[in-house]
């Protein structure tokens, strides 16, 4: 499941394990297309925590990670930023991109 979080919750949520944070917004078409695909991926990769951040309300968090195009997927491991993937991707590519952090 992809859980919606706020900027305040961010630090505690990504502290341990591998997290994928989807920065998106309701007005962004590609974000809305990515959401159901990411949801499916989250059901396949249960060792990874999936979160969603609304860039409209959590602008500071988006600025902190230099998010300038959305959807953007921020990958964190034990509280540390690993990489940011930008744009829609099909399920197989997402799984490939995330899997290397749990192997």
């Amino acid at each position, binding site marked *: 499941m992809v859980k919606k979080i706020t900027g305040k919750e961010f630090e505690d949520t990504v502290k341990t394990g591998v997290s994928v944070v989807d920065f998106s917004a309701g007005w962004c078409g590609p974000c809305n297309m990515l959401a159901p*695909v990411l949801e499916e991926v989250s059901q396949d990769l249960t060792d990874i925590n999936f979160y969603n951040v609304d860039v409209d309300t959590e602008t500071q968090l988006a600025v902190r990670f230099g998010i*300038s195009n959305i959807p953007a997927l921020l990958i964190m491991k034990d509280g540390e930023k690993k990489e940011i993937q930008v*744009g829609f991707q099909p*399920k197989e590519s997402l799984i490939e991109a995330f899997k290397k952090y749990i192997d």
Partner: protein
Amino acid sequence: MDVRYDVAVIGTGPAGLSAAITLKIRNKNILLLGSKTGSSKVEKAHEIHNYLGLPAVTGEKLSGQFMEHLKQMEIPITEENITSVYAMGDYFALTTKTNRMYEASAVILGTGVNFGKPYQGEEQFLGSGVSYCATCDAPLYKGKTVAIIGDSPKEEAEAEFLAEIAGKVYYIPTYKGTINIKNNIQVVWDIPVGVQGEYQVEKLILKKQELEVDGVFILREAVSPASLVPGIKMDGNHVEVNRKMETNLKGCFACGDITGTPYQYIKAAGEGNVAAISAVEYLSKLN
């Protein structure tokens, strides 16, 4: 969004038309997207000497024959500018410039090779300040400085939209003519060279000057296959396919110039036929 088509065929050159005809014969529900007049490239060709059965045919004549063939088979062409094709799993979602959406179980790409070469740094900064979609990313540039490279007068409306949100907007037209733009947009007549920056876009380099910007929107008439279909595997400037015209994305096929040289009409038509048959095979396994 009322129907899910069996196959969406994008492109109305010889590849796309040939694919559409074969799909129609196989009784598939198709959505053929492109120009109602077919391919302007074919139409403008002086004379073609190696199209089977039609010796020394002019491009205009050949194009006319193509359209007549389509008419006889009652295949309509939908004139829409497709901006993205999303692989959703067991179907594809196609979005248009006018924000419409279509769904299809399979997709055949026959969009040709009329997309331009990317600017220096364009691919490197895609997602870090370079964007192809003003309506998607504009709100992220609230109060900031952006440059828009527009390939056609149609993009002027996008520039105006951005100007409502961004702090400062430069508009760099790559076409000639009068620019009808309101608002606080500065039109710059110069030739784009590339984008530069450290982690994010910082500058747009033009032939005669440099502009300090936070973002660059590149709005082209035709987008490259990689930005049209996120996740598609490329082989240089072309889409990678196998002998069945399958791309790396399940249910997505490509044919014609987009798959590589030789750029020949009869090769494109042949590949369209193969792509259509492969799509039919794919559909039969899907159900």
